[in-house]
């Protein structure tokens, strides 16, 4: 580019003004329409004939305040369960995914075990795994193993989610073009180094959005641990209270906290997915 006449943009003030006026109008329109729609919905709900009864047993201010400390204690446990399970799941799932891609004959039994694990575990509802591990193993009184139902319920979540997450990671590994591995091997990197420095980093980057979705689901599924009555995790706190008082407000309070936990993660997952799309568009796809 050596022409100079068009190189510097010339801003026309009237044009800029028109643009910002239009922007202001768009914002106003969306604000007004949002308020109208929400208002109509609220009006519809509170004027419906069943509303007083619903409000009494689901949105009761007294019970909400009363149960809050218990729920907050449960919240702490939920976060601990989630934060400790996640890294373990990632490691186990990555191991399973990598094993399934190994072709050397020595790995044949391991490969079949990994396939069987993913198939069997994904076939069992998570709640059954939690019941089996959480009630079953502590009842065996096995020497040297922890006997806490809470631990075994946590373990069941790890078992279940490892299988799902390994499938996501496997899809990621397969999406990395074989020429990347060939380039790594051609440079003299061995099989492990090629995976560690070239294939796995690219695979993980590509599947970050679906991985985050799985972790949102995991966060919610910590609630399933309540069924074995372990600890004072959030749903359990709500459950005890609700059955004592015949009032379901505690469930609603617990639900609100779950939403508070998962919404930021969802927004983050969306943001990551959008960034990914922008990036691969900029790179013109993969070669």
């Amino acid at each position: 580019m050596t022409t100079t006449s068009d190189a510097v943009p010339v801003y026309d003030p009237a044009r800029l003004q028109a643009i910002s006026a239009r922007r202001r109008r768009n914002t106003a329109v969306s604000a007004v329409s949002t308020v109208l729609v929400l208002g109509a919905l609220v009006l519809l709900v509170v004027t419906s004939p069943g509303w007083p009864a619903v409000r009494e047993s689901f949105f009761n201010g007294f019970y909400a305040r009363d149960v809050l400390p218990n729920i907050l204690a449960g919240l702490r446990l939920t976060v601990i369960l989630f934060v400790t399970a996640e890294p373990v799941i990632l490691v186990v799932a990555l191991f399973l995914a990598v094993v399934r891609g190994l072709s050397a004959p020595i790995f044949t039994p391991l490969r079949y075990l990994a396939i069987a694990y993913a198939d069997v575990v994904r076939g069992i509802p998570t709640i059954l795994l939690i019941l089996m591990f959480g009630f079953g193993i502590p009842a065996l009184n096995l020497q040297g193993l922890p006997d806490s139902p809470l631990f075994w319920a946590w373990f069941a979540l790890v078992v279940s989610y490892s299988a799902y997450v390994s499938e996501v990671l496997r899809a990621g590994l397969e999406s990395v073009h074989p020429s990347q591995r060939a380039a790594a091997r051609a440079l003299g990197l061995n099989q492990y180094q090629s995976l560690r420095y070239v294939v796995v980093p690219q695979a993980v980057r590509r599947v970050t959005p679906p991985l985050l979705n799985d972790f949102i689901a995991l966060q919610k599924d910590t609630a399933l641990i309540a069924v074995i009555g372990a600890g004072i995790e959030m749903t359990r706190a709500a459950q005890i209270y609700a059955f004592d008082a015949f009032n379901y407000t505690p469930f609603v309070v617990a639900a609100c906290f779950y939403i508070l936990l998962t919404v930021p993660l969802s927004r983050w997952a969306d943001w990551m997915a959008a960034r990914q799309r922008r990036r691969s568009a900029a790179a013109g796809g993969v070669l």
Partner: protein
Amino acid sequence: MTGPTLQLRGVHKAYGDNAVLRGVSLDIDEHEVVALIGPSGCGKSTLLRCIDLLEPIDAGTIVFDDDDISWPGFDVNSARRNIGIVFQSFNLFPHRSVMDNITLAPRKVLGAGRSDAEAQAMELLNRFGLADKAGDYPDRLSGGQQQRVAIVRALAMQPKIMLFDEITSALDPELVGEVLNVIRGLKEGGMTMVLATHEMAFAREIATRVAFLDGGEVAELGPPEQVLSQPQQERTRRFLRRVTEAGRL
């Protein structure tokens, strides 16, 4: 070292029923530049990939510096240390900067320290006019720049021989020159090279010998003036005629 650097003897390679290489024999001496030409699908890429042990061969031997590197169980990683290969599609690692693309193998395979590896990489980048790209990611580079980085990445392992597989055919015409200049520079430096190419003019200029690959074997071999101007074989003449006709269209 006694014989030639690289010695191919009766190399066979089939994909299922498709016998691609049917007894390729070729000796390549130190400092030689051999251009590999032939119709599309004749097995140029396959041969280069076999030499770098990216594909196992079915029969024959590949001897490099007196070692039969094609022997089953030969330490492929140590063999590849002496052989650099550059692909048509660059295959840079998109998640690593130019500098990290170049230093990865020297650091992990040769055990070089980070600062040594980076100093060596900077030297190579300087030599090929890429010094200002060291921190960039591959998707920010033009095709020609990406291909030059891929060459630098292979050179950083200080190979004794370089294999080039149609390294300019994915490039826009105006970017071909900068990549060919790199090859010219390497020839001046005495690098032993095998390059598969469709650029006959370049083959004529750069090669010490030209090998015409057809029907799974080396159909004709000799100095460029001979193979490209006075081919002995009818099939070589036919191929060259097709190439020049395509060039005129």
